[in-house]
């Protein structure tokens, strides 16, 4: 943003300033990566503590229900709001979307820096809950009346949502303008990377739905601290209003996470299979935009058991089942991309292929939850817990880790592949299955979720044993993984500029890592160019 005349003054800028105050999209992407992985680490430790507590009937390590609620709150809020969303739409989109469209930066670099620091200060606010008296204890959902009557500091929850929400909305504005106006000359809409399309769709969802969440939690703040009555039935308010507003955002939020994850998978599958994306237009306009079209009219399936009118439940059952169609189109395209492909199996590809299994399992186990009749039985059981971990947590996290392996040579100039990476992949993959399969089984049998002590269900103890062992296998795998990332970034095997022989601009036209301004010459493409142009 500086004029040439200011360049001389920058020659002596210390490196820490260039990092800390950076407005470069790649460095902001790295800041997002570091922040989201740190959040993942802390929230992952919480998960291990939760699993240890659940291993046996009775009280083990956690001293009170309130403490357990605090751990659940932090685990859920941090994993969704500080790991998955910033990891996918913060790190991956920031670093690679401008490269993929041939842009030198985003449209508003300072607003981009503003977004990343909103994210960091939101994490600070969330971390403060460990040191303040009366920390928030309201899960990541913050349902009233409890969130209003609790002695916990609900305001920090609300402001964390505000900071992250504002960060995402500004990110959405920034990236939508960037994709509309800063594509390389000659790049048409049907020549965009799948990751670009899925990210654009995710940002459209963020733009429309985050304000609703922001309003929902703001009213929570008013009710708790100013004495208003939005969620107070005794004065004519409606306690279900919050759940409606909350899920009106938070269901689409699932797609905000799901879609960029799908985009990363397409990049990996196409590159490692040396095959064009199968059914590109159907996947983009039917799959991606189909999901965006239906995303806003399915939220009632989170409220089936709250006494919604039957017509509303039935309507949302239909729309919820309808979501399978665009998801199916996308899945079909992913499988089709592998059809007769010349596949290279490396760590990125192993994560991508495992995602094909996770999306199938997570998607199919969601169908019973779309049906009100079955949900009456399954709601609030660990079946739900296992289902959304498979489709949302595991699928998206595996896609993100696959993406990190895929783009690692671009970011560092070195490979992260190797024996340690392979071992950590298998630990993670086996571990998550060992953890969550038992939860499906005992969920159907009636194991309630969110209980810290399940004295009334001692018969499930052995399943909880298995699940806890699984969690520690994942813990070990992740430890290896992060050790490997750090080691490889410093001393990994050197990689050429385009190690996977990809056709996408981030590989064909940039250094590793790309310097200021990304490209040496301006990028121009013709109508025959495609990021998936692999001749047979």
């Amino acid at each position: 943003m500086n004029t040439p005349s200011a360049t001389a003054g920058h020659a002596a800028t210390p490196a820490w300033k260039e990092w800390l105050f950076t407005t470069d999209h790649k460095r902001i992407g790295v800041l997002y990566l570091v922040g989201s992985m740190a959040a993942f680490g802390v929230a992952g430790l919480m998960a291990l503590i939760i699993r240890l507590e659940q291993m046996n009937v009775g009280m083990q390590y956690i001293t009170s229900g309130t403490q357990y609620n605090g751990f659940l709150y932090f685990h859920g809020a941090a994993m969704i709001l500080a790991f998955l969303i910033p990891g996918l739409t913060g790190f991956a989109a920031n670093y690679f979307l401008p490269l993929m469209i041939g842009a030198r930066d985003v449209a508003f670099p300072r607003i981009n820096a503003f977004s990343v620091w909103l994210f960091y200060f939101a994490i600070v606010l969330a971390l403060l809950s460990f040191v303040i008296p009366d920390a928030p204890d309201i899960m990541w959902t913050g349902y009233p009346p409890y969130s209003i009557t609790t002695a916990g500091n609900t305001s920090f929850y609300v402001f964390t949502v505000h900071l992250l929400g504002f960060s995402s909305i500004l990110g959405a504005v920034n990236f939508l303008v960037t994709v509309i106006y800063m594509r390389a000359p000659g790049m048409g809409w049907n020549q965009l990377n799948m990751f670009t399309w899925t990210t654009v769709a995710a940002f459209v969802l963020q733009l429309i739905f985050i304000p609703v969440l922001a309003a929902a939690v703001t009213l929570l703040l008013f009710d708790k601290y100013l004495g208003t009555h939005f969620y107070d039935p005794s004065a004519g308010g409606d306690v279900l209003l919050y759940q409606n507003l909350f899920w009106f955002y938070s269901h689409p939020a699932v797609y905000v996470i799901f879609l960029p994850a799908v985009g990363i998978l397409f990049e990996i599958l196409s590159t490692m299979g040396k095959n064009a994306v199968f059914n590109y237009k159907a996947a983009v306009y039917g799959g991606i935009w189909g999901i965006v079209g239906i995303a806003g009219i399915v939220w009632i399936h989170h409220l089936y058991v709250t006494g919604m009118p039957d017509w509303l439940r039935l309507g949302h059952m239909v729309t919820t089942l309808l979501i399978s169609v665009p998801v199916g189109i996308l899945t079909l395209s992913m499988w089709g991309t592998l059809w007769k492909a010349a596949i290279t199996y490396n760590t990125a590809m192993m994560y991508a292929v495992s995602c094909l299994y996770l999306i199938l399992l997570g998607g199919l186990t969601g169908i019973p939850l779309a049906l009100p009749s079955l949900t009456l039985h399954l709601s609030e059981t660990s079946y739900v817990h296992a289902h959304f971990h498979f489709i949302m947590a595991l699928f998206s996290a595996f896609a993100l880790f696959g993406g990190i392996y895929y783009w690692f040579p671009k970011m560092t100039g070195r490979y992260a592949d190797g024996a340690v990476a392979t071992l950590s992949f298998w630990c993670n993959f086996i571990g998550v299955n060992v953890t969550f399969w038992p939860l499906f089984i005992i969920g159907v049998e009636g194991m309630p979720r969110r209980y810290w002590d399940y004295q009334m269900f001692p018969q499930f103890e052995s399943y909880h044993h298995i699940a806890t062992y699984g969690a520690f296998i994942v813990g070990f795998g992740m430890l290896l993984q992060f050790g490997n990332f750090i080691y490889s970034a410093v001393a990994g095997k050197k990689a050429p500029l385009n190690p996977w022989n990809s056709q996408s601009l981030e590989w064909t036209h940039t250094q590793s890592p790309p310097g200021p301004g990304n490209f040496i010459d301006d990028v121009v493409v013709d109508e025959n160019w495609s990021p998936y142009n692999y001749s047979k």
Partner: protein
Amino acid sequence: MTTDAHASAHAHAHHWEWSWAPMAVVAGTFFLLPITFAAFFVYDNSMATAIAGGLGVVLVLAGVAKWVDEGLTQVPLIANVSTIGLPIFIVSEIFIFLSLFASYWMMRLGVTSWPPEGTPEISKIIPLVMTVILVTSSFTIHIGEEKLEHGDRSGFNKWLIITIVLGTLFLGLSMYEYNHLIHLDFVPSTNIYSTAFYSITGFHASHVFIGLAVFIAVLIPSLGGRTNKAFVTCASVYWHFVDIIWFFVASQLYFW
């Protein structure tokens, strides 16, 4: 992508861009909103409230000043897209207002008699006057923009100041009305009408306040002869948006 955008891009290729302004504004916002709020409402600590609030104001002002200055002196990578970005942002704003109205409608349509018990007579004169003021201010900022378009800077400054005065008058009337109603024991916790009334008018007033703050950020450098036209357009478009939203606020809360 335009050619002049390319020309400026080459100047960027040799060093890493940085600016401390964004982080200062975020840090200031962090102290000014969550910390100040919690210090006051949750922990009831007036000392911490004053310190966090003061620190927040200083950081926000410093950051905004630096940001505005950079916006006036530096060549952007791509010009004139902020006038596209702002309307996209306004889509978000529309949804937050829609959520508030939806909450109000749900409460209002759920009861048999309106207004609920405890509601005093609310004057319809004040909102009418406020409407006239805000609509007028939309015209005055438009005239100001026309002046700037024709190179008449002192005319622009004059009409911008008139707009700021009108906006301040609007906020003043709002405060006067709040004060009056609070004396009649109509406070946010009185009933569901007061709940919606203070939340929605207050939320709108906060937008008026932001709009005024942006105008002042335009005015100060403009008095010294510096303006960024895209910034002026954005400020003006935002102001029109705040004006249009007011029609919904007034019609739903005062005249229904």
